[in-house]
């Protein structure tokens, strides 16, 4: 078990290093940021001062080592615009995103799993068809369009909910529903098919043959086995959810990390962009690690042989 975890950790660190390096190269390869930051008629000597001030005048490999060195010391750089540490800027926004993301993610997971199990147990009935129809609708719907539709209906026509901001719980309803819809749909579909898969297994018939009651068969034989693939899709949804927050926070003017990312990207604020990407990569890698560990908890085969 310990070897299993340390191997996963090593891989995680290697992955993180690739992400950081790749993003660094891409951002620096896109050209000199001073041309975007300064007006066209800026005198050359001011540009030079700027470039020296931000260390952009040095060769790229030198910049890379400086960057990696300061990263390892916990220094994420300074924003081009606020001149404040990028990490502080990002951390200020994280609570708002967590607030929105957790509500949407938890809601999406609970609703998705419940509907998926119900649909599978009522296979080919009206309940199943309706659930799956809603699920197909949910994951085909572009989140930005769904958000706009909600704004048109509930803010502009009915005037029930505020279209932007984050002050009260009413502000959270539309962004959370928009963000949770896609997750719930995917999770419902996936849960349904993994429950169906399990119901087909021969051990389900064995359980029935030995006289186990229907609730017992479902609770102790079907659901634990169906949980393993469902955990995978839960981990996978987390990443999609983070990508979703960038769009949703922009649509609903929710002052979270996603909106900050969008603003920083448009302003070419290196340090902030890199910090957010790093933070996202770390959280996704952590989630994946947790999914792997959960596998080991749920599936004794993984626990005993140390691989899946």
């Amino acid at each position, binding site marked *: 078990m310990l070897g299993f975890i340390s191997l996963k950790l090593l891989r995680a660190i290697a992955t993180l290093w690739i992400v950081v390096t790749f993003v660094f190269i891409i951002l620096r390869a896109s050209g000199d940021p001073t041309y975007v930051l300064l007006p066209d008629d800026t005198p050359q000597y001011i540009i030079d001062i700027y470039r020296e001030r931000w260390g952009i005048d040095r060769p790229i490999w030198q910049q890379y080592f400086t960057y990696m060195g300061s990263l390892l010391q916990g220094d994420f750089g300074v924003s081009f615009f606020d001149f404040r540490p990028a990490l502080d800027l990002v951390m200020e926004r994280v609570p708002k995103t967590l607030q929105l993301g957790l509500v949407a993610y938890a809601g999406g997971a609970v609703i998705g799993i419940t509907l998926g199990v119900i649909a599978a147990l009522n296979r080919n*009935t009206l309940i199943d068809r309706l659930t799956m129809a809603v699920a197909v609708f949910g994951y085909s719907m*572009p989140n930005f369009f769904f958000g706009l539709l909600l704004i048109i209906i509930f803010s502009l026509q009915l005037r029930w909910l505020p279209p932007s901001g984050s002050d009260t719980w009413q502000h959270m309803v539309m962004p959370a529903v928009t963000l949770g819809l896609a997750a719930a749909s995917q999770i419902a579909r996936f849960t349904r098919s993994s429950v169906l898969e399990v119901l087909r297994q021969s051990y389900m018939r064995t359980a029935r043959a030995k006289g186990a009651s229907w609730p017992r068969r479902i609770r102790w034989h079907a659901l634990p086995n169906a949980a393993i693939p469902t955990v995978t899709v839960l981990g996978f949804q987390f990443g999609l959810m983070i990508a979703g927050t960038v769009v949703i926070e922009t649509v609903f003017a929710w002052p979270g990390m996603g909106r900050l990312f969008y603003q920083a990207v448009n302003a070419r604020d290196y340090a902030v962009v890199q910090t957010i990407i790093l933070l996202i990569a770390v959280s996704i890698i952590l989630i994946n690690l947790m999914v792997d560990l959960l596998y080991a908890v749920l599936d004794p085969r993984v626990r005993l042989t140390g691989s899946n």
Partner: protein
Amino acid sequence: MAVTDQSDAIIVKPPSFVKRIGLDRAWIVIFAGVYLGLVVLVALFAPLLQPYDHAAQDLFEIRNPPVFMGGDWNYILGSDDLGRDVLSRVIYGTKISVVIALVGTGIGAVLGSFLGIVAAHFKGWVDDVIMMFVDAQSSLPFLIFALAVLAFFSGSFIVLVIVVGIDGWERYARLSRGMTLAGSSNTYIEAVKALGVPTWKVYARHLLPNILPALMIQFTINLPGTILLETSLSFLGLGVQPPMTSLGQMLGYGRDYLLQAPWIAVVPGLTIFFITLSISILGDWLRDHLDPSLR
């Protein structure tokens, strides 16, 4: 395989009621197919079908409502804030979105499948390195990466197509690697190798045809995602740049007129939604028919 006995834990009711209210699959699949056919036709013949030029402005005809909201037939789907015909723009935007999605998914499919086969063929460190990149790719939501790249390479169409293309390569790589590894151990592959057939020919003539169906299914699974990626990027203003337009970009533009002229956003939005919906429905149907165990 004991696939016949599915009823041991659940009672399967006959879907007669479902059929009666018309929730049966068949006509939905036909509808999806027809809609997609229409989209392809529109994409192919866009310039012939546009009543107006997509960028032509007429400042005397701004925000005309569409026909179904009491407008006149000159602007069937209304006009936008610069007096541009929404129908013409949707036709042109559909073309651009479809082209980017198809070319993009194609790039991802070829690149990913190739790298997957390479990884499976060479094994060892080549495999390790490629799989490390696959891991890295999956640890960052692609939209985040795409936004950063596009913003920093401000608005190049080629970069957009390449970025959209990179999306999903890791899924093809994983799939083709796994299938190549499994396929290579088949006796007929060993037989062909023993006969002295060159390696490239073994892959091109014997292995590829066997993994192609799975890759095609992956293609239909990825396609809606690719369309959503391009439309999201364009919606956020970092994808297709004016005067060119795409469905996502129209939606982003229409966002500012939701109160006065909601059709500017709703028409392209519905177009995108029905495209992704149709592909999902057809993809599901295809999978059900290719995988009889799910029936």
